[in-house]
């Protein structure tokens, strides 16, 4: 029995048969009446709607499986390309079916992108990027300090660092944003939304990145440190010249990941009324009841920005990986 089963699974056609079955199961619950409508030439005659539905499901499933089979014949690069193109086309078809007003999107796109100024400051995607860059710089400094504190022999530094990471990793970002904006005025520090947003994002992401820095520093072999010590370097110089540059190679990939996450989490600061991308999408969507239009446009802008971040990360990774990875 088991033998039969494994033979079946390993048969080249089995995988396609299973795929076909999965397609049928996945498509069955959907209403395909629009699609199969043109299959029956004369309504009233011919097969019943129920039969037509199953006909549609089978036809569509065959199409999907045939498509998959054809693509699998191609070389790897082309397979990837085809998969991307087809998914993107489906994605656009999905949005197209919403019957959106493209005119409205185009009319208000420049505010989402943040072309131009509002009250002499940035807005839209430009403001989102500004908030993120400021928070990236600040959170990196905070994270490095917290990681060094965590690795320190000094009990106070260790305590400070662990307390900080514990609190900011242990509470939601939205709550931290509101605490900074609404809580600090209670002790006389009145911040406008943008500095409040940058502070909250820096503190939150600094806490996560601290652990990344710590892991990176610990991963540098102890022999490196010992060799530097044998050469008579001071401890601070060992960290700056020997350990950190080597740790960076390990730190960059997870850190880049953090920053991409931050790019999207920055949308939470829209609750403070900072005119970043999410806020612009919400308010302009509200103006004439075109919410979906603005949300989809904002989604595409966020996506494009993330892709750019990924690209930059890959470049930096290559730079710090010199001599280790090809």
């Amino acid at each position: 029995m088991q033998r039969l089963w494994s033979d079946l699974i390993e048969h080249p056609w089995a995988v396609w048969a299973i795929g076909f079955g999965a397609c049928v199961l996945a498509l069955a619950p959907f209403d395909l009446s629009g699609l199969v409508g043109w299959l029956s030439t004369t309504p009233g005659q011919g097969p019943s709607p129920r039969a037509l539905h199953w006909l549609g499901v089978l036809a569509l499933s065959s199409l999907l499986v045939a498509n998959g089979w054809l693509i699998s014949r191609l070389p790897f690069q082309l397979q990837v390309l085809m998969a991307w193109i087809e998914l993107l086309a489906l994605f656009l078809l999905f949005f197209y079916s919403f019957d959106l007003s493209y005119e409205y999107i185009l009319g208000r796109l420049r505010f989402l992108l943040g072309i131009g100024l509002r009250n002499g400051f940035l807005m839209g995607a430009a403001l989102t990027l500004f908030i993120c860059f400021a928070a990236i710089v600040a959170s990196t400094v905070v994270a490095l300090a917290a990681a060094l504190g965590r690795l320190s022999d000094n009990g106070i530094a260790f305590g400070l660092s662990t307390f900080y990471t514990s609190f900011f990793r242990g509470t939601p970002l939205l709550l931290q944003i509101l605490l900074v904006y609404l809580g600090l005025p209670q002790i006389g520090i009145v911040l406008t939304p943008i500095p409040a947003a940058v502070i909250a994002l820096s503190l939150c992401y600094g806490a996560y990145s601290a652990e990344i820095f710590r892991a990176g520093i610990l991963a540098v072999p102890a022999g490196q440190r010992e060799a530097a010590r044998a050469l008579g370097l001071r401890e601070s110089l060992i960290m700056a010249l020997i350990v950190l540059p080597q740790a960076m190679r390990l730190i960059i990939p997870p850190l880049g990941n953090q920053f991409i996450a931050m790019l999207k989490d920055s949308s939470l600061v829209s609750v403070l009324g900072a005119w970043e991308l999410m806020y612009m999408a919400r308010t302009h969507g509200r103006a004439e009841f075109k919410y979906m239009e603005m949300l989809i446009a904002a989604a595409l802008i966020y996506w494009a920005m993330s892709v750019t971040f990924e690209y930059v990360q890959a470049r930096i990774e290559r730079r710090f990986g010199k001599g280790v990875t090809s």
Partner: protein
Amino acid sequence: MAPVEKLLSGMTLGALLIAAPSADAGEVLDRVLSKGVMVMSTDPEYPPQSSLDENNEFVGFDIDVGKEIAERLGVKIEFVTPSWDVITAGNWAGRWDISVGSMTPTAARREVLDFPAIYYYTPAALAVHGDNQDIAAPADASSKTIGVGVATTYENYLKQDLVIDAEGAPPFEYQIADADIRTYDTDLLALDDLRLGDGVRLDAVISALPTILDAIDSGYPLKVVGDPLFLEPLSVAIDKGDPEFGAKISGIVTAMRDDGTLSELSTKWYGADLTQ
């Protein structure tokens, strides 16, 4: 002041005082007149009261009323856009001076804010999906799933703890009992859920009648049920503790009502005079 300078001066102040001082008498008025700018908070997610037009400018009834108040004070106006629950929480810490945001003066809000001037009245109405058959009067919505904006008077109405604390507010009675209340960030999200279909996520929504009518005009398949549930007086709000500023605002709004400016603006944005 640049944000950094503001931060530094705030820190010194914080170190000296530990606790923030509440607004002294006349402080807000002094600040507005000496800077020549009145900062008004508004939530541009509520057409036709406040929204952004195709040039990214604020437009709406509340915006026009705010501009008129500033003009009569002889100062310029600036807008800031904190979220609604941040506005209604009070303790503005001088971030903005005034809210012309169609706010109902309730007893709970009066504990943290002052309401110097009522500038118009808006009917609260019950809306259902166009396909709905079984809710013919507000009372039929009892025990149904009803969507409202969070921290709105409509939520209070459904919870039956709405106390409108204003002179001349017409009395009302609770017609809907035991509603399954769903709260949303704004009223319009509730309308978005209702438009999905009758009973898909919601059976009904309570919101301002002008907002519902605006949505219907924009193609939302909704209908209004029966007569308005209650009439809300809507007021200008200021932070607690500056009666001089309040008196000034009160005087200006009364003058605007007397000379017909308010009626004119109401007709422009609502197509009806809601100010009497």
